[in-house]
């Protein structure tokens, strides 16, 4: 009986630790999100919401990256080699 109790307590303790860790990480994640960055002070956003927004934001970032890379490649294709080299050097900075 007591063993069971102590075991559950222990497990809850370990899960509490990881829970705290994850909460910190989610807070960090939240601060990276432009939509949730401002609401951080007013009210606590649920972890699920943060994760959802993170997913959406990452998708947006992916799209952005794709668009930008497309445009860049287009631009690079349209520009002479000197300027392309310049841009490449800028991008690889």
């Amino acid at each position, binding site marked *: *009986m*007591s063993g069971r109790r102590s075991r559950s307590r222990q497990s809850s303790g370990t899960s509490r630790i*990881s829970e705290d*860790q*994850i909460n910190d*990480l*989610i807070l*960090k*994640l939240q601060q*990276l999100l*432009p939509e949730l960055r401002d609401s951080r002070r007013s009210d606590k956003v*649920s*972890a*699920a919401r943060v*994760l*959802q927004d*993170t*997913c959406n*934001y*990452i*998708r*947006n*970032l*992916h*799209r*952005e*990256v*794709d*668009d*930008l*890379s*497309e*445009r*860049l490649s*287009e*631009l*690079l294709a*349209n*520009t*002479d080699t*000197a*300027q392309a080299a*310049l*841009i490449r*050097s*800028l*991008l690889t*900075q």
Partner: protein
Amino acid sequence: MHHFVPDFDRDDDYVNSSSLNLPRKSITTMGGDDDNDLMELLWHNGQVVVHNQRLHHHNKKPSSSPPKMFHPPPPPMQQQQQPSDQNLFIHEDEMTSWLHYPLRDDNDDFCSDLLFSSVSAAPTAPCVTADRPMTSQAVTTARPPVAERQMTSQAVTAERPPVAERQMTSQEVATAKPSLPRPPVRNFMNFSRLRGDFTNGRGESGQPSVSKAVVRESTQVNTFAAAAKPPAVVAGDSALLRRTDGTEKCSAVAGGGLDLKGKAVATMTTTPTIEILGTSTSIMSKREIGPEKTIVDERKRKEREAIDEAECRNENEETKQGRGSTKRTRAAEVHNLSERKRRDRINERMKALQELIPRCNKSDKASMLDEAIEYMKSLQLQIQMMSMGCGVMPMMYPGMQQYMAMGMGMGMNQPLPPPSFMPFPNMLPAQRPLPTQTQPMGGASVFPAPQYPVHPSDPSRLYTQNQQCNPTLSQPPQYPSYMDPYQQFRGVHPSQPPPFQNQATSYPSSSRASSSKESVDQENHTKG
């Protein structure tokens, strides 16, 4: 617990041997046995323990034979009790903890009602009816010892006070530990009450009353604990007569005979207990080696065991519910449900996030989130860089002059923006104030809100994008005096100035998608 167990055992012993602990102990090594028996009762929560006990009983059979000679009933008791001693000690603390729970649930009163009805119906000899046949058998078979037992009973009467005390203690225990199976507790309480009466009456009226009391006690004990061994014998002939009367009375209640007891037990106890009864019977049948007495005793004991097990069942149920935490458990269940839902949602999104993050094989949530954060940062940086590159790119495009004009205005207003981040106002909201700062010059109105994603195939959009991206980059060529802060840009792009200049000069012909307003602004700037 200790109190309780010893008391109970003593009662049984008293019933069995019609003697107090001292005589019994001297006769046999029952002291530990009694405790064991109690242990069996209390500790029946764990079925394993029960099984062990039974096994022990089997093993112990041979050893118990000698005591039989003197006391026919005790041997089975010994068998039961001795082996479980270790268990008793092992589980003592836990038992105490359980016992202290004040559970007075009425759920488990079904047995108690039955018992009570029988008891109340014929308090003097109601249970005796059930025991009657058995007792008679015992008397017939074990006639010789009767005299001794009577003697012992007298001794018991002499020693009555301690018994009363024990009963009191048992009562106290019962009240203090209601978590024990309901029926037994009440039984014990009645028990004690009767005993107290008995003691009082004994002191007043003397021996005859004592015999009555003994009979009562024995009957009660038999009914409740199903241990009906030698009490009848102890009571003596008068007790037998009384019992016969009692049997007549009780016949209505119980129907008469040992089988009645069994029936009562079956009805009282739930189905599981009935199963247990069956198992116990099988065990008992195996054990039926001794004489008829022992068989009868075994039967009785069997019944008692069944009752005990039923009690234990009740106790188990009570202890499960009865941690006083039924509400808490319910709330915990609700909480668990909602928590599980929340967790499921989070896990689901975690999985989605994991799919979005390349090369994320981490199963650990924390490391996965870490990776997600890093990945997001890297993505943002990448977009910064790419937009910077895009910003650099427009310089080569025709129509750059507009940016140059705007850049000039900005440069006039704000000569020292952080160079590395200036080109990407949309990327870093912290840099947002930049357009507002340029507003007085009229160039800020040109900046549209950042719009991602932009389709590169759309030239006008691309144009606007470029506009957003690099207002400052276009600055240096036209107004070198303001470009000191942007030296790094010039250094980085040594080839830029000429095209800018060219484009600026050739602005009218090269402008592709510039709006009239922009052109006006540009003209103004160029003029200025």
